[in-house]
């Protein structure tokens, strides 16, 4: 059930320069969040009227906690980076559709491709897949060494390759290079990707036609619940016509053949 939850800040940690992990206490943790869903955060300054969407990076129902991981890119995230333990935030959620995983069986082999701030929802996904005893391989891309985060957390799920655009850490190169080098040989029951548009387009092209390859799309949003039509994508089936998919309610997770990125 979507509600406007009031949550209390448990802690805020700077994982890497400009990258923050925010732990929030509140009933939203037990609202049945699925991996890949997001929340819409009210910036605690009324000059900012649009909420900011963030994927849920971790759900802990027992502690009634969720984690968000975000990068400071503009005025809203700058203000978020200043919130302190015990501060309260308004968080609308859980929103959208997460990654389909019900069809997977133990020992199935899965590829997770993440770039930068695309990692957060993939982390909760990894936790769920681990519970399902699915075998995971991870390809994680970052712009540069100092912006690498959560490498060890992902490594706990399975074999993890890290690349940086500038080669300052891990393999140097793009995701395509990494796919060609490391992951070409295998067959995967499912592929899940989240990251910059370029990465998602590359993955969509690489796995075109795969029955279970999914990306989590990004879009400028306003409402986050389907009432404003801000976040539409054309469909691959009707690229110039009036058909559309809304990232906030039809996504953010789509099959790679569904929408035009």
């Amino acid at each position, binding site marked *: 059930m979507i509600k406007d939850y009031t949550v209390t800040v448990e802690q805020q940690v700077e994982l890497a320069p400009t990258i923050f992990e925010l732990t929030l206490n509140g009933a939203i943790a037990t609202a049945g969040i699925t991996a890949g869903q997001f929340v819409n955060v009210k910036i605690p300054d009324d000059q900012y009227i649009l909420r900011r969407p963030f994927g849920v990076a971790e759900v802990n129902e027992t502690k009634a906690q969720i984690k968000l991981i975000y990068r400071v890119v503009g005025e809203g995230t700058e203000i978020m980076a200043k919130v302190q333990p015990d501060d309260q935030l*308004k968080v609308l959620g859980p929103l959208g559709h997460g990654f389909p995983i019900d069809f997977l069986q133990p020992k199935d082999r899965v590829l997770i491709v993440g770039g930068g701030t695309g990692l957060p929802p993939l982390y909760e996904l990894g936790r769920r897949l681990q519970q399902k005893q699915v075998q995971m391989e991870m390809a994680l891309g970052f712009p540069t060494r100092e912006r690498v985060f959560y490498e060890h957390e992902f490594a706990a799920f399975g074999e993890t390759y890290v690349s940086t655009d500038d080669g300052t850490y891990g393999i140097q190169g793009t995701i395509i290079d990494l796919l060609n080098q490391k992951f070409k040989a295998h067959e995967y029951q499912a592929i899940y990707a989240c990251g910059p548009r370029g990465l998602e387009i590359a993955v969509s092209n690489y796995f075109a036609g795969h029955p279970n390859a999914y990306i989590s799309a990004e879009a400028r949003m306003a*409402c986050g619940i389907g009432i*404003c*039509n801000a976040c539409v994508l054309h469909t691959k089936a009707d690229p110039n016509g009036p058909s559309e998919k809304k990232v906030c309610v039809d996504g953010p997770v789509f099959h790679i053949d569904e929408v035009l990125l």
Partner: protein
Amino acid sequence: MTNENARLNVDLPGLTLKNPIMPASGCCGFGEELGNLYDLNQLGAIMIKAATSRPRFGNETPRVSETPSGMLNAIGLQNPGVDEIVAEKIPNLKAKFNQLPIIANVAGSSESDYVAVCRQIGQPEKIAAIELNISCPNVAHGGMEFGVDPEAAYSLTKACVAAANVPVYVKLSPNVTDIREIAQAVAKANPAGFTLINTLVGMRFDLNTKQPILANRTGGLSGPAVLPVALRLINQVKSVCDLPIIGMGGVNCAKDVLEMMIAGADAVAIGTANLTDPFVCPKIIADLPNVMDQYHITSLKDLIAQRNGVSV
């Protein structure tokens, strides 16, 4: 209806409302999503998304951009077309919420388009009233062009009033030198009333690309930032014309609702605030009685009567 509720009743032509609050067009879709969050029968009415003769994708994205206490949108009247709206969207909404008066927002790019949509949708078994959108700034043809020219606004209104079998409220543009002139011209075509304001035209630029943020370049400014402009325009229209007004523009809370009614509105639509908080309309409805007490307002009908100089 309890006594407490009666304080909130307002009457407009074709609209006997339990309270003056309605989500504004374009900020509530066709009621499907909000209807999953709360009981829409609580609302005074609902103003559904624009209907055009054919389905429209609208503009390319980005379609929204934030501004201080406001936002720009350039959705471009995306909608599934009047056929689907009449065949599915409206019947679904009516089936789920049978106490909810529906106001259909009608847009077009030519007079004949507008008239055809008004004829098709403007039937009492379908909707309670039409909001004639002659002021959308986000489409290349039609929309605002009609709303800034008194002659065109008059003739379009006349044709739509004739075509529809429900009251027609004309949505005025704030992007004009003198709104009184437009309101007076439109009034001659005998609409049921006015709705205002639609959005102010604005722009934002991306410092990285040095290009406009919106794919459409310009967009419509809405949200709290425009409240003082909306209050002024509503007051100006009221000062020259007795027709009822559904006011909108930057309303965020019960106090804003009362302020807009003092300025001249007979009912109040809430647009952008739904995007910040989808529960804002029922919250405002719940808050109104307390805030009315605070300012010694017995009932909204009293407030309107006193404002209009009628002794009660």
